[in-house]
């Protein structure tokens, strides 16, 4: 059992330029009866300690599958086909997580230990027939040498920290006795109780009302500061991204099409898709419920991905001589900002 070392980091932070987690050219396909679904097809991004990477994109673009691929918890018929997930916690040797044996002890000690995950569906992400205490104590004991009583105390402590009232009694309750917001908090407590280096939060606030959402975002940011934790924050809510992210990655059909600091992306998006996405973001003066004015056409199914740049059938700046024929690469389009579009260089 490895216990996460959480102290030594702070001093090194400024000198370390290595990303804590680096995903390169990740490909995860689903081999279904109807054909191959390329859910993630060449996604790349880096995550640094103490920073938050926001991943945005329309529903079905492969955000959750990317997250699950990092921990190798893809369900059949999905398979990780290629790419690298480099993890280098606190100066330790760089490790490609995808090379670890899928259910072997090494990856298992990282799962939930150094890299934790918060799932999208707080309703169904707990076992309905085990008490909440049972499930969180299990998570603690898997990654530490605490005995049952100590683990119980730690769990109660975390429940209190995430703002669940009367944590002692709630430990012996079942998930369906929690409200949606409480479940989400409980989920966060379970993910954080092992003090991970990286937290992958897959739409942790979608199911919540605005007030609760704000509380939970605050909570995450506070905890992040305390532990110098890196967060991968997945959402399709651009407002949330603007609030929490340091770096933003925009995904479209399984690919990161643009990545850069949050200010740059919001002030001057380069990729036509990012532009469209951002202009669909409701602002205070925009008419309510106006539907994405500038993205025409439907998202193609990942199974029949358009050739060349996958966005070309919907793209307002479509160039017939290249977009449908070649796949663009990520190229630099500003300080720390990259986009994959032929508008910015055609190799």
């Amino acid at each position, binding site marked *: 059992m490895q216990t996460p070392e959480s102290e030594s980091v702070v001093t090194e932070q400024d000198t370390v330029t290595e990303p804590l987690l680096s995903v390169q050219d990740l490909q995860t396909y689903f081999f279904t009866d109807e054909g191959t679904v390329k859910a993630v097809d060449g996604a790349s991004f880096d995550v640094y300690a103490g920073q938050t990477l926001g991943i945005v994109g329309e529903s079905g673009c492969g955000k959750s599958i990317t997250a*699950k691929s990092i*921990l190798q*918890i893809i*369900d*059949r018929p999905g398979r990780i086909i290629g790419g690298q997930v480099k993890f280098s916690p606190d100066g330790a040797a760089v490790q490609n997580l995808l090379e670890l044996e899928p*259910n072997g002890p090494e990856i*298992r*000690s*990282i*799962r*939930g*230990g150094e890299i*934790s*995950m918060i*799932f*999208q*569906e707080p309703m*169904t*992400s*707990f*076992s*309905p*027939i*085990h008490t909440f205490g049972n*499930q969180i104590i*299990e*998570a603690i004991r*898997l*990654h530490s040498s605490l005995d049952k009583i100590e683990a119980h105390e730690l769990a109660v402590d975390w429940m209190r920290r995430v703002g669940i009232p009367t944590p002692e009694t709630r430990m012996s309750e*079942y998930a*369906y*006795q929690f409200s949606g917001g409480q479940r989400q908090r409980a*989920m966060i407590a*379970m993910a954080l109780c092992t003090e991970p280096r990286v937290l992958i939060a897959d739409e942790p606030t979608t199911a919540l009302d605005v007030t609760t959402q704000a509380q939970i975002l605050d909570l995450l940011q506070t905890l992040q500061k305390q532990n110098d934790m890196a967060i991968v924050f997945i959402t399709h809510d651009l407002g949330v991204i603007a609030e929490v992210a340091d770096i933003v990655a925009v995904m479209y059909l399984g690919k990161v099409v643009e990545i850069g600091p949050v200010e740059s992306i919001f002030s001057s998006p380069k990729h036509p898709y990012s532009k469209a996405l951002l202009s669909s973001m409701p602002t205070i003066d925009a008419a309510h419920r106006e539907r994405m004015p500038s993205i025409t056409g439907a998202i193609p199914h990942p199974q029949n991905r358009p050739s060349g740049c996958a966005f070309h059938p919907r793209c307002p700046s479509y160039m017939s001589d290249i977009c449908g024929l070649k796949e663009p690469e990520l190229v630099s389009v500003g300080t720390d900002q990259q986009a994959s579009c032929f508008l910015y260089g055609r190799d």
Partner: protein
Amino acid sequence: MLGYLIRRVVYAAFAVWAVSIISFFIINLPPGDYVTSYIAQLAIQGNIIGAEEAESLREYYGLDQPIYVQYLKWMNQIRQGNLGFSFEFGLPVNDVIGERLILTMILAAATIVFIWIVAIPIGILSAVRQYSIWDHTFTFFGFVGLAVPDFMLALVMMYFSFVLFDFSVGGLFSPEYVSASWSLGRGIDLAQHMIIPIIILGTAGTASLIRITRANLLDELRKPYVATARAKGLSEWRLILKYPVRMALNPAISLTAYILPFLVSGSIVVSVVLGLPTVGPILLKALVAQDMFLAGGIILLIGWMTVVGTFLSDLLLVWADPRVKFEGR
């Protein structure tokens, strides 16, 4: 939970009553009343009964009264533990049934245990290794097991054990134990003789339990809470056994209540073919001879037995699924 329990109890009581009505209905089905049949039976044995005696018999059984009075009379008798008289055997029904009811129950209970022991691991294996050679093999055997009627399985087993092993299946005891009193030796002897009947009886139930377990486990394995557990770093087998298997057991428990009536039905037929000393063969004999108090009594008892069994597995569900406790489904 209380709501659930009360509902189950009310329902069981209702079922008990329904079974008694059905049994009484069956007793009264054959044309002519019990006394007429009885007299005819006696006549065959050369025992002629006069009209007066017949009248007094009718009065004794309440046959001159309306049907609901007859029913109440019968129920009252049963309350006192008296199931009536069997003219086919010339004995009180209680004595005819005797040990046979207990053996029927033992057989059914043992078969359920067998079904669980065999089907649950296979169902888990089939789901976890979906589409593997094992999965395909068990799925195929499951289909065959479900398809072949019990009596035919009994015939085929009988044929093969006779032809291949020169061993004739039949009975539940070796000759020296047939009418011995209960002892360890008798118990062991019974266990040995029950193996083949249990396999025959349990095949269909095993097949359906494998299918249910497999299907439910496949469903459960796709649920988000499994991903959560996996993301915690739990090892695969521990995870499967702790979470989805535990969930998949609930439908398995419900299924037990569901297959119990089929098991009892099957045990009747299999017992006839294999000549097992359960209530099966005497039920058949009673029906063929239209010895209706015996037949009705047996149907009543096995019906009640099934109701109680179903009730017990409903209780088991409360223990197994906390949601039942709280939702009060």
